[in-house]
């Protein structure tokens, strides 16, 4: 995974709350067996509405999404993160994220920064006043800046470290392989085994 530090990109206001993952990527796009190429699927239903924000040319190269609270609720589909990433988004900011979405984002190098609802609205106002304005994201210092307005965002310290170091979760966990093997050796006999298969 690529290491992340600071970057700037076009800020996109998504003025909706409760953006569930069925809206981020409808189920019909989940049939693909690849992990890339989901940009066409992002907000596919909403893109049919002419005034949807991502249909406006000034926002089409958006990299920083600023959304209403309860973003990423519902289905666990990681495809939602892939679709945001493939479109070009590197960070999403909201007052509240669903847990599974946050976890999935951290695995794919998409920053999920928590800001307040007041800050969200202030940022939306700044974008409305200057559509296409760039936002700067500083992960080490946890700041998001548009023009002269700067806010601190919250991100889990461990996820931040992993993103900054570009680390692979599996390799990290396998450092504890000895502990895994030891745990397995004392696993109780009554616990489930799927093999050999019974009931077939």
């Amino acid at each position: 995974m690529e290491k992340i530090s600071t970057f700037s990109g076009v800020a996109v206001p998504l003025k909706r709350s409760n953006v569930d993952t069925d809206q981020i990527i409808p189920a019909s796009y989940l049939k693909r067996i690849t992990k890339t190429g989901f940009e066409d699927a992002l907000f596919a239903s909403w893109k049919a509405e002419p005034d949807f924000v991502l249909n406006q040319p000034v926002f089409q190269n958006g990299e920083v999404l600023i959304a209403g609270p309860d973003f990423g609720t519902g289905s666990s589909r990681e495809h939602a993160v892939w679709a945001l990433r493939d479109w070009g988004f590197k960070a999403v900011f909201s007052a509240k994220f669903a847990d599974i979405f946050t976890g999935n984002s951290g695995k794919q190098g998409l920053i999920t920064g928590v800001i307040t609802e007041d800050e969200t609205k202030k940022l939306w106002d700044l974008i409305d006043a200057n559509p296409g304005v760039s936002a700067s994201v500083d992960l080490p210092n946890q700041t998001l800046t548009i023009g002269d307005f700067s806010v601190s965002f919250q991100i889990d310290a461990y996820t931040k470290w992993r993103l900054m170091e570009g680390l692979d979760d599996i390799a990290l966990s396998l450092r504890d392989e000895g502990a895994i093997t030891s745990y397995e050796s004392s696993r109780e006999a009554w616990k489930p085994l799927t093999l050999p298969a019974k009931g077939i």
Partner: protein
Amino acid sequence: MSANSTPLTLAEKVWNSHLVAKGEDGAPDLLYVDLHLVHEVTSPQAFDGLRLAGRKVRRPDLTIATEDHNTPTVDIDKPIADLTSRAQIEALRKNAAEFGIRLHSLGDKNQGIVHVVGPQLGLTMPGITVVCGDSHTSTHGAFGALAMGIGTSEVEHVLATQTLPLKPFKTMAINVEGTLRPGVTSKDIILAVIAKISTGGGQGYVLEYRGSAIRSLSMEARMTICNMSIEAGARAGLVAPDETTFAYLKGRPHAPIGKDWDDAVSYWKTLPTDEGAKFDAEVFLDADTLDPFVTWGTNPGQGVSLLDSVPDPEDILDPNEKAAALRALEYMDLKPGTKMKDIRVDTVFLGSCTNSRIEDLRAAAAIIEGKKKADGIRMMVVPGSQKVRIQAEEEGLDKIFKDFGAEWRFAGCSMCLGMNPDQLAAGERAASTSNRNFEGRQGKGARTHLVSPLVAAATAIRGTLSSPADLEVMV
């Protein structure tokens, strides 16, 4: 619990007993996974990741796969018409064969929705950890298991390591005391809970459903409640194991036997939350006064009693909730003040991992038996697994549904999310026993009202959202 130890909740006990490595300096704990359920939608990229890194599946014997999300519910002996669906299912078959994973394919008598298959085989048990690349994995919490939905990267992680790095959760007690009135079910409990705490109210929490109303529920009814924990934003939801749990498990194909059974039961009896254990939050719901609950909007928290009316967004104080309600009413084509019972539907869907088990089918069949379906209504019945379908047919339920004019289908996720051809047309309105009423969930432009199997059945008779009590008035 020894006299000196800190009283613990059920969730904390399961967590502690699966700790492989304690995280330091803000790092997550590493937890062992006892059971990994796999399906075709969220796994292909995970298997690809393993291949790219030259990794194997660490414990094929703790892993089981089934085909459910994409599978057709008619003509299952013919090749799947949708080529992308077919490719995804073929990918699962290839991956399962290559990595040595047990797979129940379309046509197999154990095939079905992953969350129906696990409990049915006796693989889901108290005190274990269960994960699956599906948010409704919370279903398995009904057994007192810590069961969580995960994303595809985590699926790959579990395949490779049989562990998952997790941050400790907060705990929330959902206390439901009293006795449900006739016509009110566990689906109504969970819809009322979500309406009360909202879709984000459970975020960061593991929920424990407690109280006399929960204790008196069957295992299948408990599964319905735990299933929808995720709709309140929670990572998991559990019910403490008790005699109901043990009786359900005993004799199932993978349930322990002999000494293992006795050891297991002794251990399971230690799992319920200790007296004096502290929850980080508590919620109370009165079962005695609960009505059948239905949703009016486009998230599962937008629900009311069936006896109520569509709310007026102007009465909602929170600006975000108000904006969401305005948008939801526009999408749902509903006006504030409309009585819920006056809402006419086009389709009734009985199915999904929430409500497709044998008790759900029996309950609906008992309502419709000998009755006539409302004119112009379509009713689709999709058993949660082939086993459920076979059992229903042995009991003659299929005949009741068919005589009523309902479509009797093969098992799968079906119209809950419409990945297969079972979809609503744009503008169509459904009473659905599933779990999500999101925009476009059951088909582009489709409108969903979440309901219990009893409300689904009564609605199919009357044509408008109804409870069984409304049928008595009809005669």
